[in-house]
């Protein structure tokens, strides 16, 4: 009981006990910063609790529930325990060392540098046709790289299909045809599996290294050109 009195700030209020409204206001204040819905529900519950007890039992209820800030702390602890895994962990993950900021930059940089290089070449005070040619060459190489990714993807798809088709043929004709033919089917399947691995490796190399390296190379040349201009 004593602490309830002590919560009120000045001497005048220290003499009189906290009212229900003050108690609820205090809890609400302590819960500031939490989700509105969670806060509203907690306050509604508290209001209902007081209502159920009846007007004349206001002080009894306050004594039972304990100091407002302590009551709020219990609710807070529960809310925090629940919200943390949902809202804070993704934030932490973004900043862990397994994903250094350098790398994130790298992922964005190819596209950015290409854009900068294109803009830069346009801005260079060289003959316009030359700049145009340079842009075209860079674009062409870039398109080739992307086309390579697509063609490798096609190889991958075809090989998957081939494995299914020839695997089916192999199983359905096994023992009925010449062993040489079965051996040929097995050969095709193995070849397709090999090509799948190669195409996956190729696509990975192009996306992770080939295209970024090319864009970096472009930017290096562009910087060199600019130095010469100066």
């Amino acid at each position, binding site marked *: 009981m004593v602490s309830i009195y002590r919560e009120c700030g000045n001497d005048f209020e220290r003499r009189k006990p906290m009212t229900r409204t003050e108690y609820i206001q205090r809890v609400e204040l302590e819960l500031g910063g939490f989700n509105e819905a969670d806060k509203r529900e907690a306050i509604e519950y508290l209001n209902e609790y007081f209502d159920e007890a009846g007007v004349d039992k206001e002080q009894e209820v306050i004594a*039972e529930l304990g100091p407002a800030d302590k009551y709020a702390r219990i609710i807070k602890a529960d809310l925090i325990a629940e919200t943390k895994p949902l809202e804070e962990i993704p934030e932490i993950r973004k900043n862990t060392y397994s994903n250094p900021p350098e790398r994130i930059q790298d992922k964005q940089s190819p596209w950015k540098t290409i854009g900068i290089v294109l803009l830069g070449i346009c801005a260079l005070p060289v003959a316009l046709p030359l700049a145009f040619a340079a842009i075209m060459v860079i674009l062409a190489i870039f398109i080739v790289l992307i086309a390579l990714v697509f063609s490798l993807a096609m190889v991958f798809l075809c090989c998957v299909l081939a494995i299914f088709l020839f695997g089916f043929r192999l199983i359905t004709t096994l023992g009925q045809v010449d062993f040489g033919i079965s051996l040929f089917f097995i050969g095709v399947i193995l070849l397709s599996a090999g090509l799948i691995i190669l195409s996956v490796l190729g696509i990975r190399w192009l996306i992770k290294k080939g295209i970024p390296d090319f864009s970096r190379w472009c930017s290096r040349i562009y910087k060199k050109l600019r130095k010469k201009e100066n």
Partner: protein
Amino acid sequence: MAFQYSGAVLDLCVLAIVEKEDTYGYKLTHQIKDKLNISESTLYPVLRRLTKDNYLKTYDQPFEGRNRRYYSITLEGKLHMKELKQEWSAYIENVETILKGESR
């Protein structure tokens, strides 16, 4: 009383009471407080969590010009209660075994 009630035991008690009859916060608090040594302030978080986990659901009913929020048990709540009951029995049995000094 020396024993503290928290977590699963309190969940089990709340579920068991609500399973028998839909009830509201104030009544539930006092039903449990009659038997167990709990503070009045501990039950709201328990009810909130059980509701959030879909073990309980709430509905409002007007009473004397205001709202009374009732809690009722869900199917999931009943299943959860069954599990907790089994674990509780096993726990009690183990404690009893130790108290009786039987060794296996």
